[in-house]
């Protein structure tokens, strides 16, 4: 074989990688991306810090006035006691504890987000107390405090009943029913609304990141090929290596440079995500179970990695072919817009499809190779996808990449020598071996 893929593909790839990562623009862009990524992952903590200064509203329902007043008193003492050293007069109370008129009203207010939680107290037939605690966010310390206060009031209430009677009724162990109003039913399964919102958020972030990566790194490939034509070094290169070696090396080297940049900003971002709970615990004294990025799991990261790499490869070959048919970087600008259309459609389809992730159109698009890196990833994140569906989508994508690489290499080998003159499509396709010579 005259032109085995190795080692020339590797030699070209290493040069591409080195030249790219040594560039000042690359390093500056990477530093900027690291800062942005860390900033985004720290944003939820920042929001929560800002939230520290906001007031949470807790509702208390009890049919008896005394009972309601006692509960409110206990909760005030438990939740709104200033920390040691704080001036009680100047300290801003974090909770507003109010009596509500009806249990249904209390629950409705929690569901609508007007209240963080509501405690509903019910007198039982045997004179004891039962409690229903409805909440909409995750605040373990607050929840434990409220439930402890309820227990205390229950004991106090029993003590009040037995005072002055010789016939002491047994203590009614109160029933504590906790309801998280962010849990909803979906297809017979309980879905954590907060987790779902987190997954939506992740889906948008991941899909946009793949789109931006394809656009930027794809243009790197195209501009590299166009620059080699423009500087005429292509003349030397095609004498030394086959167009397929040059194209694969270029895609691999640029892809690796992109991957290095990705890892450079994903690693610190991932570290922040992993440490989010500890950071929140350190800052606020509670864990960050409700952080918007809490939905990140290993299989989601793996899916993201697979669709990122495959999506990049598919589009990188197209960009390489585009870079080979223009005469220089100026002409490439004209191709940039049409080249970005396909990934743009995929990105938009994935984001707009999120609310209807199970619709036939979204499912169909998740198997179309140009769109599957976006749409299937979105389905994996927010929908329920069978393993065979993921396998089929990846399989179709891999087959498409092989076809795209073959086609791109034909275009590349014809395109790298075209300069200046107008070339008919028929002539070009013949030169690329895609039409019979005539």
């Amino acid at each position: 074989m005259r032109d085995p893929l190795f080692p020339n593909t590797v030699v070209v790839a290493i040069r591409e990688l080195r030249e790219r990562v040594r560039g000042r623009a690359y390093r500056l862009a990477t530093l900027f991306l690291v800062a942005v990524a860390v900033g985004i992952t720290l944003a939820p903590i920042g929001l929560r810090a800002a939230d520290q200064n906001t007031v949470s509203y807790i509702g208390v329902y009890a049919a008896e006035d005394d009972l309601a007043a006692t509960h409110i008193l206990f909760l005030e003492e438990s939740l709104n006691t200033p920390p040691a050293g704080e001036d009680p007069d100047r300290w801003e109370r974090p909770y507003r504890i109010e009596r509500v008129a009806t249990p249904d009203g209390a629950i409705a207010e929690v569901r609508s987000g007007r209240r963080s939680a509501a405690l509903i107290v019910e007198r039982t037939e045997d004179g004891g107390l039962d409690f229903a605690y409805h909440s909409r966010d995750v605040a373990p310390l607050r929840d434990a405090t409220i439930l402890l206060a309820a227990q205390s009031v229950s004991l106090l209430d029993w003590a009040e009943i037995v005072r002055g009677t010789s016939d002491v009724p047994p203590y009614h162990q109160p029933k504590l029913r906790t309801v998280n109003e962010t849990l909803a039913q979906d297809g017979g399964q309980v879905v954590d609304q907060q987790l779902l919102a987190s997954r939506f958020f992740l889906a948008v972030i991941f899909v946009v990141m793949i789109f931006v990566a394809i656009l930027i790194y794809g243009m790197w490939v195209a501009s590299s090929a166009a620059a080699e034509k423009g500087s005429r070094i292509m003349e030397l290169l095609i004498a030394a290596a086959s167009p397929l070696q040059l194209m694969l090396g270029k895609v691999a080297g640029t892809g690796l440079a992109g991957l290095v940049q990705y890892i450079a900003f994903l690693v610190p971002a991932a570290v922040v995500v992993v440490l989010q709970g500890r950071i929140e615990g350190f800052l606020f004294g509670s864990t960050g179970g409700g952080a918007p990025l809490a939905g990140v799991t290993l299989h989601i990261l793996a899916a993201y990695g697979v669709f990122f790499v495959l999506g990049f490869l598919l589009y990188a070959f197209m960009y390489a072919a585009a870079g080979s048919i223009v005469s220089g970087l100026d002409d490439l600008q004209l191709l940039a817009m049409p080249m970005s259309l396909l990934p743009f459609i995929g990105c938009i389809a994935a984001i707009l499809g999120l609310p209807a992730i199970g619709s036939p159109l979204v499912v169909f698009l998740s198997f179309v190779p140009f769109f599957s890196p976006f749409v299937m990833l979105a389905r994996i994140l927010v929908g329920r996808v069978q393993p065979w569906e993921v396998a089929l989508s990846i399989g179709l994508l891999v087959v498409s990449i092989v076809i795209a690489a073959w086609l791109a290499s034909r275009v590349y080998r014809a395109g790298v020598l075209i300069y200046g003159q107008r070339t008919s499509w028929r002539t070009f396709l013949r030169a690329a071996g895609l039409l019979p010579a005539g």
Partner: protein
Amino acid sequence: MSLVVDAVRKSFGSVTALDGVSFSVAPGSVFGYLGPNGAGKTTTMRILLGVLTPDGGEARWRDVPTRSVPRGTWGYLPEERGLYARMRVLDHLVFLARLYGIADDVARRDARAWLKRFRIADMEERRVGELSKGNQQKVQFIAALLHDPEVLLLDEPFTGLDPVNASLLRDAFTELRDAGRTLIFSTHVMENAEALCDAVAILDRGRIVTSGTVRDVRRTSGRQVVRLAVDGEDGGALAWLSALPGVTVTRPGRDFTEVVVGAGRDPQSLLLEAQARGERVLRFEIADPSLEHVFIDLVGRPIEDEAELHLASGGPTPDLADDGAERSSGARAEAGGEVA
């Protein structure tokens, strides 16, 4: 056991770039491939490299089709110079050598030796873009031969070199030939072709119009050059020569006059004519016409005109269709081609 180009044809759309081109080059020789811009020289070189596939005919090196010959057989200096401007000189040379399978340390060592040979050793750590055009050309020449190819294909290697560097290059040519390498180069400088080549071929409009040893080609037309000087204040200016039938004054001068004498006229007749006119002849010299004369005779226009036409056309150089696209009598040429 030589390089044989046998009836090679190549068209790009409606433009015929090569029309049955045939010639052969002996191993270990220097071969001049001459022709005006648009003649098809670059297309021929690309076919030899296997970059383009001929529509008909075949090119063989040591009886093997050139498309099947390992890439490392060839060293190529394209007419359009181009290097990675941001790469450092030594790294660049090593990178190109590694594409031909040369080990990193060997490439580094040999590159340094050649850089020293071409007097740019102190520039190995400089970025290519910081070098002068002449030095970039030397780097590119080194890149063409660093992997020690059997055949060097050099498209206008002397363009842009000052006399000192041109002399260095000529010395390198001779040394490489003596080492058994085969050199094929195109040039507009006929003096270089005459001085360096064992054989030449002149290509015009995709066809070989003459080929052979330099001496044979110079004698192709049957014309001869006569240089004549007579005694007197203006001994080189002999106005009467231009009036003679079959005689063309090519260089009227103060010291001597040079004329080309047509095939039907005996050069000795000029000496007789001078004596008949009572001139005291100081110098009378008969020589074969220069390659430049032959070139003008066969191609019909001097090389300088071709170069000026090329520059005046502006814009990017048509390349895939090679210079052949320029021959399309003003029509935009279609271009196409394939790269192996």
